[in-house]
Every structure is written in C-alpha cells, then in structure tokens.
C-alpha cells in the first residue's frame, strides 16, 4: 500500500516535497519546506482524505522540527510530514486557520516550545497556568526547572 500512496504524493505534490522515505511497511516520512506546509497539509487533509492523529514538536540543533501525523486508514498508512522551523524567528503558517482540528495542538506547541503560528485565530494558553511567565518555554533543551520559581509567576493574571 505504501508504494501506491507514495506514487500519489509524488504526482500531486510535485515541487513541494524535499524528499520522501518509506521507513516501515505502514509508515512514510515526508520532508517539507516550512513555507509550503499549508499546501501539503491541505492537500493531504481535504483532497487525499487523511485523518489528523496529532502533531509533535521537538527542538533540534537548527530549529524546531514539527511533525504532522496524518493517517490514511483504508490504505493502512501513516504519513509523517516533517518540517524544520529555523531559529531564531520560529515562525510558520498556521494550519489551524483552515482546519480547526489543528488549533489545540498548535496552541500547545506555542506555549511549550515557543513556535509562532502565523494566522492562528485563538492563541490563548492551553496547558500552562495563566500566571506562568511570558517568554519561557518548558520543553526547550536549555530550560532548567530552576528557571521558573514562585517569584516569576504573575498571580495577578491567574483569573481569580
């Protein structure tokens, strides 16, 4: 089934994909330029009828790598769309602007890793306390637990 999916992606996403690899018999890695991520995800979601599993972010040396996990169930294939958002801007187009299912996971990546999703309609805090200091990102590699202490919290913003 993988071959069929890869052939389709190669035809329909010509010029938008950097490279593609078959890593397991039910999993494909697709590497995409961050500027073209909107086109690729929109094609996979609306035209190719993939379902969103989740998205994940991870800090690498050059930037933050975001992986969008999309599943095509009738073909029994998981497509991992990888994109590298480079330092220091950390800006990428919001997929949640068009597809509401992506909004919560983008909010989470915004507060835990500091990626800015341009065009996201509702970028409030999702997981962290409202009083958590701005500009600190707990899932970054250089974050230490001692970076945020009780004094850093702004309890005026805690919503009470």
């Amino acid at each position, binding site marked *: 089934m993988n071959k069929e999916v890869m052939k389709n992606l190669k035809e329909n996403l010509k010029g938008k994909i950097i490279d593609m690899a078959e890593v397991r018999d039910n999993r494909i890695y697709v590497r995409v330029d961050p500027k073209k991520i909107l086109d690729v995800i929109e094609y996979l979601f609306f035209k190719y009828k993939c379902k969103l599993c989740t998205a994940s972010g991870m800090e690498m040396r050059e930037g933050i790598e975001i992986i969008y996990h999309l599943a095509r169930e009738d073909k029994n294939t998981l497509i991992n769309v990888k994109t590298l958002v480079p330092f220091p801007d950390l800006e990428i187009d919001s997929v949640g602007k068009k597809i509401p299912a992506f909004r919560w996971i983008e909010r989470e990546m915004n507060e835990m890793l500091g990626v800015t999703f341009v065009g996201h309609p509702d970028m409030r805090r999702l997981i*962290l*306390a*409202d*009083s*958590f200091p701005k500009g600190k990102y*707990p899932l970054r590699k250089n*974050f230490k*637990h*001692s*970076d*945020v202490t*009780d004094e850093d*919290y702004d*309890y005026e913003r*805690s919503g*009470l």
Partner: protein
Amino acid sequence: MDILKKSFKKSIWVFHLSTAACNNCDIEVLELLTPKYDVERFGIKLVGSPRHADALLVCGSVNAHAKPRLLEVYRQTPKPCLVVAFGSCGCSSGIFRDSYSIVGPVDKVIKEEDPNALIVYVPGCPPKPEAMIEAIVMGLGVV
C-alpha cells in the same frame, strides 16, 4: 489556647480540597466515608463549603494554577482551623517537587498567608485511611 480547645471540642467538619492531586488521595478520602471506616461515628464529616469547616484536607502538590485558589479557600475558612497536608505530595510535593509548575508543598503556601497556621502532615502514597483518622485525632491533641 483556650479558644482553640473550645473550638475543636466537638465534631470536626472537614472541607476536602484537591490542589493538582493525581486523584488517588481523593479516592482514599472517599473510602473513609464507607461503612468499613465510617468516620462520621467520630463526628468527622465532609462539608460542601469551607465556611462550615473546622479543618481543611488538602491533597496534592500545589501548582501555580492552584495556589491562589488554595489561599482563597484558606481565607474563607473560619479561624482557628486545622490544615491537613494529605499524602506525599501534600507533605513535600512528592516526585513533582522540582517541576517548573510546582510552587511548593501545602505548608509553604499556607505559611505565606498565615505563619501561625496549624498544619498536620499525613505521609503516604496514598495514606491509609487509619493514618488519616489518626492525623485528625493527633491534630486535635496538638491543639
């Protein structure tokens, strides 16, 4: 101390508050109300509002979101009141101690508001129901 002795002489009413607990302590508190342990025979009763309570039963390592809420509940409880730090997390924040979102165990937060607060510690993960009954009784002895 006279007023303390007088105020804790009769049935102790307890308000149960969960500040970022994993729910295991909360379940253990409910077990106290079952026929096997039945704390109401001692007059210990869970109440729905901190304004009716003599003791606050606080479960969980206090995180930043829960801290203002815990202090608000403590301010609403009539003084003198007994604070029971329940479980390993309540006593010392447990395994979450060095996490970025944890601002301290129960006693640290309460003592910021009131340095003379009466605090009883019940360690255990979760504590046995007998331990909690003993803690309340010992707390009354201390008072």
